[in-house]
């Protein structure tokens, strides 16, 4: 008898579920068309933390709930492609990377043209908007700007004994370097193992590829040509970059081959290296913890790798209008100011960049402003695979003793034979 009642209750469950679902459908059909939720795909990190922290302001202003999903970096690549190429239609806003994703998003992604969806007065405030345009189409709006800088041991550079010794040896002042030759001399000068090493470059493939970009962009090169759509992996700039990487890695502390730039942060804080190049996210930490010990200077040369999350709206987004509202809030002056002060990243807006509070909070902003116009992005559509190949070529030079010219030719003519920059 008991089991009979149980069975009847179980049998009733689907009916109850149907009634509930029916009620839910009715309730949605009665509400106006305003979207309730904006779904954002983002990657874990301080910038996304800032979005989440200030999202209640967006929710209060629009009545739209911001569902910001943070995924781990390794999963991000596939998710972005699922949304922007395969049209998975799970998210209204998809954050992509500025330096590595820009080209494929421009040429391959199914995204809304934001020039038609965002007010012109807001768009006119965005610094470097052209970087995110293909023709007249605006494919995304950056959330912030970040890029690599050169960090050096300020205490050593300002030490009178070191200055005198350097001048005696090289006949010039010990100052932050402005050419690769200068930087190499300084690195050699301070290379005093095992207590101090001249330079640091992380050898893990994704990290050493980033260092390669600093040299390649600094020398005026790139990995592809947007006009011819061909790869440019054995240009003179590429060969010089490989040559410099070979020289600078020789002044690295032991173990660099399996380390990355985060290890560089630790080495720098512990006084083990004289210089290294890294994203300026670390500047806030250095400045707060050891303001007299570490200094910062712009990277050498003509360009620096563009770092930004760029907000795009997939063509297949379930609620593109909610996505537009979210991006409008994100690029608004209020959030841009809050974010800059919170994270230490540069705001994307020209007016916020001049805000006294922001300028006060961002120590070294004058240095950042020097680099801002030079930001570059990888001009190929398949950076993941390319960067692994570049890493292989670098190790041919630094480990196997292959000449930079041969390694660059191998990359262009063997490893990626038949491939194009824009595929």
């Amino acid at each position: 008898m008991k089991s009979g009642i149980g069975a009847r209750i179980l049998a009733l469950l689907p009916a109850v579920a149907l009634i509930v679902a029916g009620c839910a459908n009715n309730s949605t059909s009665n509400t106006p068309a305003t979207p309730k939720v904006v779904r954002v795909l983002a990657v874990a990190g301080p910038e996304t933390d800032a979005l989440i922290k200030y999202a209640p302001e967006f929710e209060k202003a629009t009545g739209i709930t911001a569902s910001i999903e943070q995924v781990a970096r390794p999963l991000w690549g596939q998710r972005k492609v699922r949304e922007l190429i395969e049209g998975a239609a799970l998210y209204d806003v998809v954050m992509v990377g500025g330096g590595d994703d820009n080209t494929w998003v421009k040429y391959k992604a199914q995204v809304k043209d934001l020039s038609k969806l965002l007010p012109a007065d807001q768009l006119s405030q965005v610094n470097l908007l052209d970087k995110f345009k293909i023709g007249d189409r605006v494919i995304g709006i950056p959330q912030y700007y970040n890029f690599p800088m050169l960090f050096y041991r300020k205490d050593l550079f300002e030490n009178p004994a070191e200055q005198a010794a350097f001048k005696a040896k090289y006949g010039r002042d010990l100052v932050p370097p402005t050419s690769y030759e200068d930087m190499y001399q300084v690195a050699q000068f301070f290379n005093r193992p095992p207590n101090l090493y001249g330079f640091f470059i992380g050898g893990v493939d994704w990290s050493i590829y980033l260092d390669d970009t600093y040299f390649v962009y600094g020398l005026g090169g790139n990995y592809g040509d947007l006009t011819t759509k061909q790869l440019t992996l054995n240009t003179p700039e590429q060969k010089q970059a490989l040559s410099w990487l070979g020289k600078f890695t020789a002044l690295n502390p032991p173990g660099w081959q399996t380390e990355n730039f985060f290890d560089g942060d630790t080495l720098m804080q512990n006084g083990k290296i004289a210089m290294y190049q890294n994203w300026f996210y670390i500047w806030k930490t250095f400045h707060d913890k050891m303001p007299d010990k570490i200094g910062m200077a712009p990277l050498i040369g003509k360009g620096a790798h563009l770092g930004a999350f760029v907000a795009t709206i997939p063509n297949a987004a379930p609620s593109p209008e909610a996505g537009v509202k979210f991006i409008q809030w994100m690029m608004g002056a209020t959030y841009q100011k809050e974010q800059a002060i919170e994270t230490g990243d540069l705001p994307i807006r020209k007016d916020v960049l001049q805000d006294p509070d922001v300028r006060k909070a961002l120590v070294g902003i004058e240095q950042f402003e020097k680099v801002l116009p030079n930001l570059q992005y990888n001009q190929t559509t398949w950076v993941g695979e390319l960067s692994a190949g570049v890493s292989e070529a670098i190790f041919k030079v630094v480990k196997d003793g292959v000449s930079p010219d041969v390694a660059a030719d191998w990359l262009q003519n063997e490893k990626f034979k038949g491939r194009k920059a824009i595929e």
Partner: protein
Amino acid sequence: MRQAVRDLPPPIAGEGRAGGKVARRFLPTLREGRRARRLTGLGLTLPALIFVFAFMVYPVASLAILSFQEYAPLRSTVTSFAGLANYAWLVGSDLVHQSIWVTVVFTAASVAIEMGVGLAIAVLLAKLVVELRGQAGRLLTRLLGGVFILPFATPAIAGAIAWKTLLNPQFGPVDAILHTDIAWFAQFPLASVIVADAWKMTPFVLFLMFAAILSIEPEQYEAARLDGANGWQEFRYLTLPLILPVVAVTAAFRAVDAFTKIFDTVFVTTGGGPATDTQVFPLLIWRTTFDYLNFGHASALAVVAIIVSALLGASLLAIRRASST
């Protein structure tokens, strides 16, 4: 229906005709009962079958199909039939060859270390258990057991981070104690990864061996001692032959596991480097999938991994079968 079968009157001696009539009367009911039981069995198995099909057969079949297709969304959104092109790439790729070689060396070395060290500690631990009877002995055995299980219980990522910290040439305690500045993961990358993995997985082997040794009858050891066997002879001629089936199965199991699942330790400690010196097969599959987004190539690699895994698994079953006969 079971009730109906149970209600059949028992056959009575001398009532053959009458019994036959009864049997004929109940025969259709019996057949219905069998069919109903079969249907019930099928109904009960169906959820499991659906589960197996949806989560095992379908993904593997999709993977196999994708391995004959070209699909790299950053190149083209069109999935096209590629024939054996992905397998041809695999056969001709130096990266794949190197990765397989690295994985084979890693598997052989780590399994050998785990089996050797695990077995040695298991023998010593078993001896301790037998000889140290009483409260103190039990306490010591439990303590040692707890200590030995720790590496196995530590999450792989946490263990790898611990090893990376221990062997850091600048700040690591190992170099500090040895007064060296050896960059273990850079100078001896594969050996360091093998040691880190062996540290984690040896307890697994140890406890299987330990259980196998304790299952041997103590009388057999007493008899061996009466015959004048020393410790080594006891191990060589008594313990080892009796636990050999467990040793073989454990080694085969670990080989399958090491070949197909080594990922976390390498990912954290060396990232597959320096260059591609420690790029094990699962890491290569992961990179081809998530970094290069070349799903055709990645599927072909994964199919090869499944085949290797199946071959090792089949050898494991063969060993089990051989040891049980």
